[in-house]
């Protein structure tokens, strides 16, 4: 079972060196214990482009699809047996990156 752990943040700025170091330790653990699938940090929402190609031609829009104070700052995809395991890992992830996270199961 895979879960998306989204990192939610509401201020400008990237992770501090201390936060980066804690994230590295957490990532190593995810790998060692077989939970790691993928993870990454994202550039600021202002760097996003929204594309809609459902019509005649592709439309490109500058900026994120949703204007809100909170934004997706990064994510993990983890492998976990059930939600209890995923929640525990997510709690540690939140501590490591020093931000709120959301856990959502893949279908």
């Amino acid at each position, binding site marked *: 079972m895979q879960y998306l752990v989204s990192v939610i943040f509401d201020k400008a700025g990237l992770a501090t060196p201390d936060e980066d170091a804690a994230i590295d330790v957490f990532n190593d653990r995810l790998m060692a214990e077989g939970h790691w699938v993928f993870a990454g940090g994202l550039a600021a929402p202002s760097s996003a482009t929204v594309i809609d190609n459902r019509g005649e031609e592709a439309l490109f829009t500058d900026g994120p699809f949703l204007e809100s104070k909170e934004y997706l700052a990064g994510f993990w995809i983890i492998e976990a*047996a059930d939600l*209890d395991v995923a929640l525990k890992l997510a709690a540690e992830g939140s501590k490591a990156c020093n931000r709120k996270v959301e856990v*959502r199961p893949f279908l």
Partner: protein
Amino acid sequence: MREAITLAHHEEWARVVASLTRRFSDLDIAEEAAAEAFATAVERWQADGVPPNPGAWLTTTANRKAIDRIRREDKRGHKQKEAQLLLYDDDPPEPPGAIDDERLRLIFTCCHPALAMETRVALTLRMIAGLTMPEIARAFLVQETTMEKRITRAKAKIKAARIPYRVPSAEDLPARVSGVLAVLYLVFNEGYLATGPDTDPVRHDLTAEAIRLTRLIRALMPQDGEVAGLLALMLLTEARRTARVSASGELVTLDEQDRGSWDAALIAEGHRLVRERLAAGVAPGRYQILAAISAVHTSARDVRDTDWPQVVALYDQLVRLDPSPIIALNRAIAVAELDGPEVALAAVDRLEGKLAGYHAYHATRADLLRRLGRGVQSRAAYDKAIEIAGNTAETAYLTRRRDELG
């Protein structure tokens, strides 16, 4: 016959739902098949008499109903996708004699921390207590369709997010048990101090249901101190239920209650539990301390015999564990009896920032100001308390007290 079915419903509902959930890995199927089995029992037992082992009869019937439903859905092409994986359970089979009760798994799944509190309450009342959807909707004053949506959404989340169907590991157990107890305490309190202008001030159906569920948890986890504490607290509170509302529908405060009408059997049982926890010699949690406070009150034949130093000492212990303003408010009420209303009022006034929106804060101030002869301020505090109080009996009591100020 009605009694036999009611009894079987109380005794067997959760067991049937739990064992079907385990077998079919699906709460939906388990719930529906259990409901159908009980409906069949109503007809069949009427005609053939109650079977010698009602629980086994119900489980067998419900199993058959579940298999029928799965076959029907298969025919219609709704294949049960990965039926065995819908609820995840990687435990090895329980050794005989271990906690073999599947109801515990069901309880922990329904009270999972990833579900909203109101959802946990609704699921627990449906899956474990076996209340019907209209009953639950009525209990919490919401539309039946709203309650149905809430439960359907919860079952979908349990499935999609794979909320496990198992008893938590030993290290997680205390936190998870306290989550379960919070659900039961909420149900009890809603019954004990029901809200809403058109509701009975005390909802015996809810307090009784909460006690029944807590007894069940107690039977399943006899070693847990907080479970015993919560059960004792509920029993000692329930014992005073009939004395708590007057014939005219007005709240009767502890000091004015007719102590002769308290339920002696419930008090004896509550006291036994409190003594059992004292004898265990383990540092008590909040429910055990609250139960001990209740035990002190119910030990006094007359309000003047109340051991107030003991009550305040217990509140001191509770404040160290749970420094919430509501605990501090209740402590101040006991302090008024020990050190006088002036000292208590000073303590209560310090809580204004946190409790200004809570009716009991204003009711307590009103009472202390009245005792200090500060009528004008007391009246203002009563006005405020009446404005916020949601319980009809409490409003009636506060109104009388205010009008007696003259």
